């Protein structure tokens, strides 16, 4: 059993595109500088007295590129947590772009899915930042009370959400794949990709759509000699 050519092409192009986008970012190092201002504008004020800031971080281990500071307006930034904007934001975006680039569909079909998908991926990235921020506030104590005092159930949800959505390594790659599949794949495209020969045979066997046979054909004018 051989894989159809569209599948092989897709399975080769996707990792190649992803690796190219990853290497491009490592060489140019542009993403953290874009991520931090956007994150600061979205999360700067977290209701009431709570404040958040993302700053550059020169990690000696070169694992984290930013640090997340949480605190209150009255006390200032009291807690600092290392943060990796590449893993939280860039890699899911790059994977989604790689999947779209590799999908064997014409661009007139892909561009809308690309735009909507990028929006959804960035909503996912906002969630990946949201949970650690909230967790930071629940752990930061002022006196003996946390800055954000949640009931035990919601505390547990925040911890689990931070773990599953932000920290889990698999989630970062899986969600973009699901967004891509939901937006760019339909049953017909999936069938064409999985079994192109059968899809061609079915297309040849399909009767003409009824709408076309009803349309009166334009009579060709005879050529004048």
């Amino acid at each position, binding site marked *: 059993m051989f894989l159809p050519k569209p599948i092989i092409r897709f399975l080769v192009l996707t990792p190649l595109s992803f690796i190219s986008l990853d290497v491009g970012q490592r060489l140019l190092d542009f993403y953290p500088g874009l991520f931090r201002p956007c994150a600061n504008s979205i999360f700067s004020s977290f209701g009431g007295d709570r404040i958040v800031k993302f700053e550059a971080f020169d990690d000696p281990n070169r*694992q984290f590129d930013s640090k997340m500071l949480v605190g209150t307006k009255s006390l200032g930034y009291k807690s600092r947590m290392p943060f990796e904007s590449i893993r939280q934001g860039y890699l899911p975006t790059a*994977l989604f772009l790689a999947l779209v680039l590799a999908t064997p569909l014409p661009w007139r079909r892909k561009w809308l899915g690309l735009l909507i998908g990028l929006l959804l991926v960035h909503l996912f990235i906002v969630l990946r930042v949201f949970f650690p921020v909230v967790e930071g506030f629940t752990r930061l104590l002022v006196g003996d009370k946390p800055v954000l005092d949640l009931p035990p159930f919601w505390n547990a949800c925040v911890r689990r959400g931070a773990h599953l959505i932000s920290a889990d390594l*698999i989630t970062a790659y*899986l969600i973009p794949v699901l967004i891509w599949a*939901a937006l760019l794949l*339909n049953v017909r495209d999936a069938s064409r990709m*999985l*079994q192109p020969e059968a899809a061609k045979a079915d297309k040849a066997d399909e009767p003409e759509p009824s*709408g076309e046979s*009803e349309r009166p054909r334009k009579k060709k004018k005879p050529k004048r000699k």
Partner: protein
Amino acid sequence: MSDTDKNKSSTTKPAPSGDKTTSGGRRSAWQENKPVIRFVFLFLVVLIILQVLYYEFIVHTSPFGVYLGISGRIAAFLLGIIGQETTTAGDRLTSAGFTISIRAGCDGLQAIGILVTAVVLFPSHHGKKLAGIAIGLVLLVILNIIRIGSLVWFGVHFHALFEAIHLHIWPSFMTFCSLVFFVIWAVWVTQPRAVASAPLLDCSVQS
């Protein structure tokens, strides 16, 4: 009935029952995407449940610890074959002064969960689903053992690359392999059955 009416009635074909079409005779984008969106939604729900079960229960059970220990021992054995002497103690592997501890997330179970969920939800024969799950499970466990061994090897010989390989390359590769196995299995289960073409016999009765 006039001739034109007869023509119209002979060429107009009624739409098949259950096929919701727009007035132009083509299915809308929503109807085309609906089965995939349903699959994606169910996949997400099942996966969230599996992830919660994984982190809340599975990783705290003793069989999980046994599985990690066995994976570590097999990885150490394979490293020994290539000349990288490695000792094991529970879930820890040590080689040339470098030690790693196999923890939750480095067991391959999440990648297996992705494959199993996708196979179960994909519409196909139960037997083929079981075959896909069994083969995929074995392949992903083998891949995970290779991952553990490679992390020890890179930790000893290319320590600067260890974090990138541990946190970026292997997790993405495991997820990718899980999806590739699913795609290969989907190609297999959607293959049209080959109809044995019997030779045409001349059965004309000759009187």
